[in-house]
Every structure is written in structure tokens, then in C-alpha cells.
């Protein structure tokens, strides 16, 4: 179980998603034709289902069938939240646009929990990087307004969950430095966040360079 537990965090590739989805359908963990003695926990099933939904390799019918199987004896609050995240995570550009509008709508009546679910579904950097790209610039153009006008609890989730800093492009470095220049000490948590993003970009840039140039053979 120890290794299965570790593996789940890294399941994004289509063959692995199919394999783990089959485990849910069959009610047992099978690797290379052999059934393991352990069982998937609800947490494992939720992670597999979320990754399966975000994938572009499966049909909506296949996704719905897996969801039904996952939740067949599970009526918990956690399962309802996961079901929503799944629906919000489909690889669909129009859905992304709609979610972005709803997340950034200052007049929203959604609860913080619902907005969290929407952001969790929206942001799929591991499997939907191309669909995320248009929102990097949108993030930079709206983040100050979000910080100024929305509640801190929402702001903290928004700035952290949807930050494009991991891309570590030249434009990301420029954008975060510009935001830092315009920030003031009134919202110290935001200033600290911006500094942290700039540090992350620096580390990622250097690490990328190392990955590309390191040779010992």
C-alpha cells in the first residue's frame, strides 16, 4: 500500500490513468495481471478520478462511468466536493473561460468553498498546460484588483492557486517584479507572496538551465 499511496500523486499519463481507473471499476488493484492484497482508499479513488477527468484521453461517458463507480457507496461531503471539482476540470476552453469569469466576478454569491472547488478544477497545469496559457496574462492584469477588492481568505487561495510563476518565463519575472514595485506595505502578505514568486522563478530558471546543460557521461 505504501508504494500505491506514493504512485497516485504521479499518475497523469493516459496508460496509468486507464490502469488505475480499472482498479476502481474492478474493486481491486491489479498490476501485471496480479491482484495486490491492498485496497484503494477513498482518497486514492478521488485522486484518480480527478486526474482522469482532467485528461483529454477519455470520453465524457467514460468519465461519468468512473465517477458513478467511485461514488456508488460514498455519499460523503468530500465526495460531493470532488464531484464538483471533476466537472470543473474538463479539458474544455469554453468551460475555462466561464470558470475564470465566475472566479474573478467581484459580485459573486459563491461560497469560499465553491470558489475553491472552481479554482481546483480550473487549474490543471499537469494535464492542461495549453489551456492554462491564456490565463497567465489575465492573472497579471487582474491580481492587483483582486487583492484590493476581495476578502483576504479568497485572495490567498486565488494568488497561490493560479500563479503562473512555475512557468519561469522572462515575462513572468517582469510581471511579478512590476507587481512588486506597485505593491505597498499595507498588505504585507501580498508583498511577501510576490517576493516568494520572484524567488521561485529564479530557482526554476536556474534549475531548467541545469537540466538542459548538465552532462557527466
Amino acid at each position, binding site marked *: 500500500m505504501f508504494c500505491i499511496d506514493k*504512485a497516485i500523486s*504521479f499518475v497523469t499519463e493516459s496508460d496509468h490513468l486507464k490502469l488505475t481507473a480499472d482498479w476502481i471499476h474492478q474493486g481491486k488493484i491489479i498490476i501485471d495481471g496480479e491482484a495486490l492484497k491492498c485496497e484503494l482508499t477513498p482518497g486514492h479513488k478521488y485522486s484518480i478520478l480527478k486526474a482522469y477527468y482532467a485528461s483529454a484521453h477519455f470520453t465524457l461517458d467514460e468519465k461519468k462511468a468512473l465517477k458513478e463507480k467511485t461514488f456508488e457507496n460514498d455519499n460523503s461531503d468530500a465526495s460531493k466536493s470532488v464531484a464538483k471539482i471533476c466537472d470543473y476540470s474538463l479539458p474544455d476552453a469554453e468551460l475555462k473561460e466561464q470558470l475564470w469569469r465566475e472566479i474573478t466576478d467581484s459580485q459573486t454569491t459563491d461560497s469560499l468553498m465553491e470558489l475553491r472547488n472552481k479554482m481546483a478544477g480550473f487549474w490543471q497545469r499537469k494535464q492542461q498546460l495549453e489551456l492554462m496559457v491564456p490565463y497567465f496574462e489575465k492573472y497579471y492584469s487582474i491580481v492587483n484588483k483582486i487583492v484590493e477588492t476581495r476578502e483576504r481568505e479568497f485572495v490567498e487561495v486565488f494568488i497561490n492557486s493560479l500563479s503562473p510563476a512555475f512557468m519561469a518565463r522572462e515575462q513572468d519575472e517582469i510581471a511579478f517584479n512590476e507587481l512588486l514595485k506597485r505593491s505597498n506595505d499595507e498588505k504585507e502578505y501580498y508583498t511577501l507572496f510576490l517576493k516568494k514568486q520572484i524567488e521561485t522563478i529564479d530557482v526554476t530558471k536556474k534549475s531548467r538551465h541545469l537540466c538542459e546543460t548538465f552532462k557527466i557521461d
Partner: protein
Amino acid sequence: MPAAILLNNDDWGFGYFCLDDDSIKVFEEKLSFINSALNRSVIIGQLIIMMRQLAYPATRMPIVMNQLMEEKNQNLINALNSAFLLAQSTYLPPEAVPKFNKETAAFYFKKAAKET
């Protein structure tokens, strides 16, 4: 000249250690042959620190991982797994993440099957 130098044998030392390229290559290929769990842990810990200090590329971490197919020490696997999650979020170029995830998940699946 030895093929590799094991820095901080038995973890007695405290300081800044950095493995040279020749030693890295040997440990990437032969780590599983080191009998002492403590010394395996020292080497893996050193490579993780070097990744964080930008002296060892995150893209090579799966090479180290593949040396641990027979590893029984869960603390050691946990340490490496934490480094993998960090690599995934910060140290790997975004375009390298899918391959990294695939190799890592495949390793754990294979290890899970072996341990049954």
C-alpha cells in the same frame, strides 16, 4: 584513484558536501550495492540537497530512484518522494513533468507488485 568518494561516511560529519561528477555517476548506477542503509541515506540526502542547491538536475532523480527497487527503508523512500514532489512543483521544467511523472508512477507500481 577510487571510482567514487563517499562523503560523510556513517553520517558523522556536519557541513557542506558536494559530490563530484564521477562519484555521482557511480552512485547513480551502484547505489543499491551499498550495504549500509545509513550510507545509502547519506548519498540520497546529498543528491536531494544538491538538487535544491542547483548542483544536481531534477531530471536525473529518476535514475537514483531506479536504484531503490529493492529498498525496504520507508523513511528513505519518503525522503526521496518529498524531493520528487518538490521537483515536480519547482525544479523541473514544465515540459519535463509528464515524463518524470510517468517514470515515477511506473517505478512505484513495479515496486508495489514486487513487494506483494
